[in-house]
């Protein structure tokens, strides 16, 4: 088991290294010299060259890469070519916001989807199961921003129970932080849970037909007892896979919801940086997103190893 986790870690580090190279290379391939952009359209070549020297973009690429890479190592993303401010504290802020939003949304989505999907599977040939399945189909079809707008117009504008938008750091005003989080988290979790219900349902349905569940019933366990004791952990394996993919997609996918609720997250930061042609900020945010995705994958791999003993000893050499 430890061997496998060590292998996962090694793969994670290698992927991260490869990602820094790929992200750096991609940004250099894009057209537009950062110095020329920063200097403006009417700048003389001398001004541009001066800026390039100041930014360090006149140095050979390997040197620039090493400079950026060694900065990353210390958590220093450098100074934006456009705003001339330090990128790192900004990114740190936004990562915190995005992670809080996405993690809570995912947790809520799972908390809704696991029971709902299980019920839909257990009662797949009864009306209540069909209703859940139909609701999840509908939920997938409703875009998150629409749900967000509906929630705002009802709970914030009509009833006035919750603030319509904005963001307060939890350390500053926890009640304000929490109340501002409710609607965006629900808006984000809605679609996710609708998607997850389908996967949970099919995973549980599949497990229900497994022989070992029949064995559990033959031992004298009740249908529900058999499912809970023997079924759910087995069903968790495919659900875990989908959750990890969805989580990564959600971090960047949250950008629309961030716009609707005026939340300063990573997605918003990335979009405005792209619009401003702020190359180094784009590069930094993309790098953070890639790193987060890799971390999620690493966590899921480790979870697999804990959940499934067969993975711990899986033979790999079989063609």
């Amino acid at each position: 088991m430890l061997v496998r986790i060590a292998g996962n870690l090694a793969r994670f580090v290698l992927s991260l290294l490869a990602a820094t190279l790929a992200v750096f290379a991609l940004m250099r391939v894009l057209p537009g010299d950062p110095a020329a952009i920063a200097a403006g359209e009417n700048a003389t070549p001398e001004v541009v060259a001066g800026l390039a020297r100041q930014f360090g973009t006149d140095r050979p690429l390997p040197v620039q890469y090493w400079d950026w890479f060694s900065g990353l190592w210390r958590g220093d993303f450098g100074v934006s070519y456009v705003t001339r401010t330090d990128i790192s504290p900004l990114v740190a802020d936004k990562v915190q916001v995005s992670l809080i939003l996405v993690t809570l949304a995912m947790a809520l989505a799972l908390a809704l989807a696991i029971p709902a999907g299980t019920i839909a599977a257990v009662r797949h040939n009864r009306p209540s199961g069909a209703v859940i399945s139909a609701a999840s189909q509908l939920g997938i079809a409703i875009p998150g921003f629409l749900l967000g707008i509906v929630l705002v117009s009802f709970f914030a504008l009509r009833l006035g129970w919750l603030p319509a938008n904005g963001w307060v750091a939890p350390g500053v005003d926890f009640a304000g932080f929490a109340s501002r989080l409710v609607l965006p988290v629900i808006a984000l979790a809605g679609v996710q849970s609708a998607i997850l219900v389908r996967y949970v349902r099919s995973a549980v349905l599949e497990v229900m037909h497994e022989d070992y569940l029949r064995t559990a019933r033959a031992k004298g366990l009740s249908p529900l007892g058999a499912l809970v004791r023997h079924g759910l952990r087995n069903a968790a394996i495919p659900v875990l896979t989908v959750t990890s993919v969805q989580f990564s997609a959600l971090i960047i996918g949250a950008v629309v919801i961030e716009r609707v609720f005026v939340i300063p997250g990573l997605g918003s930061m990335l979009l405005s940086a792209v619009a401003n042609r702020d190359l180094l900020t784009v590069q930094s945010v993309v790098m953070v997103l890639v790193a987060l995705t890799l971390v999620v994958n690493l966590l899921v791999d480790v979870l697999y190893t804990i959940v499934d003993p067969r993975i711990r000893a899986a033979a790999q050499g079989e063609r």
Partner: protein
Amino acid sequence: MSEGHEFHGEPLLRVENLGIAAGSTPLVSELSFSMAAGERIGLIGESGSGKSLTATALLGLLPEELALTGSAHLRGFAPELFTAGDKAMRGLRGDEISMVFQEPLSALNPLMKVGAQVAEVMLVHRTVPTRAAAQRRAVELLASVKIPDPAQAAGAYPHQLSGGQRQRVMIAMALANDPQLLLADEPTTALDVTVQSQVLELISAQVRERGTGLLFITHDLAVVANMCTRVLVLNKGRLVESGDIDTIFTAPAHPYTRALLAASDISATDARGRLFTVDTAAGYVPPALRTEVAKEPAAGAPERSVRPAGDGLITATNLGRTYHRARIRAFGPRPVVKALDGVGFSIAAGERVGIVGESGSGKTTLLRILAGLDAPSTGSAVVAGTEVAGASEADLAPLRRQLQIVFQDPMGSLDPRMKVADIIAEPLLVPGHKLDARGREAAVHRMLGLVGLEPESASRYPHQFSGGQRQRISIARALVNRPSILVADEPVSALDVSVRAQVLNLIADLVDEYALTLLMVSHDLSVVRHLCDRVIVMKDGRIVETGDTEQIYNNPAHPYTAQLVASSLELAEELAPNP
């Protein structure tokens, strides 16, 4: 108690007019029987005869969509079983009635240690006071079913045990609470022969020792003869005959029983040297009578006039195939598994050779290499003039025309979305064949006739056929481009006994007609004995013995071969008078 079914006092189990139906289709009807305490009854029948449904109904676990009628009473349990309701039945299941299933790997939870799975059944019924006591008792039970190092095995997951050990775990679990009634549904069908006989012995010893009533479900008559005192024969959901083992097997009254007996007795052949089938069963003499009358020379493959001659059509020299497993320690070497190790032999054109051995013996790997589906790690194999080792796909083209395969599973090996005509014609589409569409159609029809299927079959899909018919389609596909070598990987092990004999007869006929060289892998020694002139016995990736079939059977030189021969249950031997 001279006869098992005449007993005094209250029976252990009394089933009356059991009926199971799916909508308006009856699956089991009017089944009545009773079982005395400690009696061992065999429930035999082919797939679809309703034998598994019967056991499932007794356990109260029939799927909801099936309608259940009739009644069943268990001694010491007041309510009638079929109407008792799930809550009451839960108290019985695993406690008074328990069950051992066919496939032990899928019947055990893959994510739970086997000790905990055995302990659970005691905790559910509170037959032990504490969790720790349940764990201790589980280890004792694992010891009683003769699992080596039971304490360690209790901490293992199912995938870490062998097939036989897993089934022993299932048995330990079923017997944990000393049930009155044990239902065993084909418990050894998925196991190797030598393991099968050990597991049967274990079940037999355990139920005798505890006085447990046994309802043993199987399609294999030799197993019933070995395990049970009384037999119920089911056909299409109806009880066609019941009685003592001796009566049923020596004087079967019902034609179906006789047919089943004839088809499963692979040591008997009719006047033309062919196996008895359901259709030709009228001329069959049950083995018990046969041995009483005289030693008939009927056993064994018919003597063939043409003896193979000439050089080896298939020559393997020092063949090896190794696989690498995942590392156990981070920087240690990757463990190597030798699936094949220094295998060498030569097969002449026209020979019929059987490869026998248990799962993991390397027999399937060997077939895959000879068929060009896998590459050997070392050594060389020349098949019909083509060197397989290191060959590219283009190099293998002549081999693909010369050698065709019939696989074990007729369900999985036919593309469900292709019509039968397209399946059979596919080998004709390889480059080099000059047949046009009409020529291919003619070839398909000729092959369908040859394997005994209707011409209309051509436009149907595989799922519209039974297992035996599908295997006929596989054979037609294999022979359509007139190969010189036919490779068959367990061709009848997924088939019912009555169909098995027909398919084996068909293979024998076609091998003669097409002058084929036959290479057949089987775990079933009697099948190999009937069809093959020569046998290669494999164990752990090596050939342990090879020679003339009859000689190997009558005089096995290697201890492993002797063990294989001894473990194989044959009807005639099982019915021989017990000492």
